[in-house]
């Protein structure tokens, strides 16, 4: 058996050797190259969101390089996997900054990973755009290097509550939110919006991502006479909740936010989710040409409709390319300022305009409904953007 042990040691050192050699190689020396770092959970629990971000960024870079949209700058994406773990996110952010020397990072989907990465991008002075994390604390720390193109949750919460009261005049509602950063911030926003609008919240239930059985909580809601359930989480659990609610004979109105807006929700939810109301930033069937071409290209290339976690990174690449085109340098400080006063760009998820704290206030908030096997536009939320 010792022969095998020697073989393994040889293999083991070979693997390490190749890794050591290949690391410095990645810095190619072509002149006008814009390296974009991407930090996303390509493995682990939210692997589907991470890989959607990878596809969105790859497609955007290829399009820009083909059409020469960013002048003679060639975009070069560098993807790193953070497995949804903040410690790994910090390490890979450091790798992108120190090793591959990227001037800008599109990064992290879980709020905890984004927060971990922000510590290092701020220290190194590199602009960071997150297109997936909606935790309030991200843009509340006065960190001027962070930008967020994810749809703003508070606008969505206000739009949903407003729709529930004025369009459907509901009296008693419940919230059913994920016990992760996305769900917890949603729960706070929904409660605040409901209290402001005088809507009674009878049950505030939570679930852990990966839970499978929601009937006990649904039963509690049914007992308390819930007319509507506001859900806040990635699409897998809301699909289950909708299914199990209908099985329990509850015909209450279902609401959800952009996190669950994905064709997978419809596919998994089936007829149980017909009539469900969702707020989101773009619609596959919308008639806006920019959105249409994005969806067709994505469909042609990856064989399925894009989810928000693919569309927002796609826009972030265009924002970066536009900024670099304007300042014609990849100096991080100039790049940050250029991104800060981005304006007049018509993109897939709206025309981005960044507030002082880094939030994108140019986002559209569409109220959509599940009819048949797709989302149908109901109305564009008339939410004036206060902050």
């Amino acid at each position: 058996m010792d022969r095998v042990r020697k073989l393994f040691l040889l293999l083991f050192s070979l693997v390490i050797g190749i890794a050591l050699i290949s690391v410095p190689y990645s810095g190619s020396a072509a002149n006008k190259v814009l390296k974009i770092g991407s930090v996303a959970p390509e493995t682990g629990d939210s692997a589907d969101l991470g890989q959607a971000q990878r596809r969105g960024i790859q497609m955007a870079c290829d399009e820009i390089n083909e059409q020469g949209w960013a002048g003679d700058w060639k975009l070069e994406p560098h993807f790193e996997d953070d497995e949804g773990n903040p410690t790994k996110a910090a390490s890979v952010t450091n790798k992108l900054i120190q090793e591959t020397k990227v001037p800008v990072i599109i990064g992290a989907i879980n709020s905890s990973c984004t927060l971990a990465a922000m510590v290092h991008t701020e220290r190194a002075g590199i602009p960071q755009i997150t297109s997936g994390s909606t935790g309030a604390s991200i843009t509340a720390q006065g960190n001027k290097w962070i930008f967020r193109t994810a749809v703003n949750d508070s606008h969505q919460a206000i739009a949903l509550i407003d729709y529930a009261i004025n369009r459907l005049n509901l009296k008693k509602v419940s919230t059913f939110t994920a016990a992760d950063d996305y769900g917890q911030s949603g729960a706070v926003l929904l409660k605040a919006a409901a209290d402001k609008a005088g809507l009674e919240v009878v049950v505030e239930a939570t679930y852990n991502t990966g839970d499978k059985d929601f009937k006990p909580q649904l039963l509690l809601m049914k007992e308390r006479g819930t007319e509507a359930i506001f859900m806040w989480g990635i699409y897998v659990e809301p699909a289950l909740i909708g299914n199990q609610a209908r099985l329990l004979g509850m015909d209450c109105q279902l609401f959800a936010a952009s996190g669950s807006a994905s064709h997978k929700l419809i596919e998994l939810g089936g007829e149980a989710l017909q009539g469900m109301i969702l707020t989101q930033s773009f619609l596959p069937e919308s008639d806006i040409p920019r959105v249409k071409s994005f969806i067709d290209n994505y469909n042609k290339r990856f064989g399925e409709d894009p989810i928000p976690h693919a569309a927002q990174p796609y826009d972030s690449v265009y924002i970066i390319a536009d900024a670099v085109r304007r300042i014609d340098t990849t100096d991080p400080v100039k790049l940050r300022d250029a991104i800060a006063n981005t304006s007049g760009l018509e993109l897939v998820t709206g025309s981005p305009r960044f507030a002082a704290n880094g939030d994108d206030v140019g986002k559209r908030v569409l109220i959509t409904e599940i009819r048949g096997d797709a989302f149908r536009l109901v109305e564009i939320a008339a939410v004036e953007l206060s902050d």
Partner: protein
Amino acid sequence: MKGWDILYYLVNGLPIGAIYALVALGYSLIYASAGVLNWSQGDMVMLGAFIGYNLHCLLGLNFILALLITTPAVACIGMLVERIVLRSLRKRSSPPVNVVIGTLGVAIICRNLALAIWGPDAQLFRSPVGSVPVEIGTLRLFPQDIFILILGIALMILLQYFLKYTREGKALRAVAQDRMAASLMGIDVGKSDTLAFAASAAMGAVAGILIAPLFFVTFNMGAGIGLKGFVAAVVGGLGNIPGAIGGGFFLGLIESFASGKISSGYRDAIAFTVLILILWLKPAGLFSKITKETV
């Protein structure tokens, strides 16, 4: 309304309990016969679900045929795991904790292979028995739950029969009692280990296919169910076959009551607290006697 929802949580906890019991049986069977913990048991469930999904949903085979093909396929994977991990570890007589790390490596490999092959998205597994609930009074029984209970219990009885009356089953129990003595009696200890791994992998596969319609098929479903199965097996008394079944149902019921009555956020915390207290009272598990060691 009062008495009624206690019954409800009971009915709701049973099918999940059956799934946990099937996975727990895998842990207990392997621990009983080979004396080791197989940490890749959860991923056998995932593999069963995915292979079943491929056959039933994509290739359109009918459900029973898909079940009959998937189970032996995953059983072979179980044998492969035993061959690679256990055989070489036995040869090096390394400590049992190395088997845990070894099977953990296998679990990581299976999980990420599934990610590479089937992609990260959750897949829908159409329930073979439809989803029209059967109503008794205000109680709703779902066909898939009933199907899980029936098939699960049938499998448990089959295992009991196999262990009690077939030749290999008796050999397996002999090895569990005393490996040395069993091998002296001419029982091929290696073969019975392989059999144990194959049987538990097969049960995991069935659990996977049963649970798929309820909770979709994702590449990392194995981790959660594997841990719950381990907890159920330990609470029931590791290595004790009826104990694993009891432990599985017990865990299913605790979770159902905890999330309904107290709070779903703390459901697992409550379940673990209860289980640690139980272990404090009965250190060898709920259904096993404590053997006092004298010299």
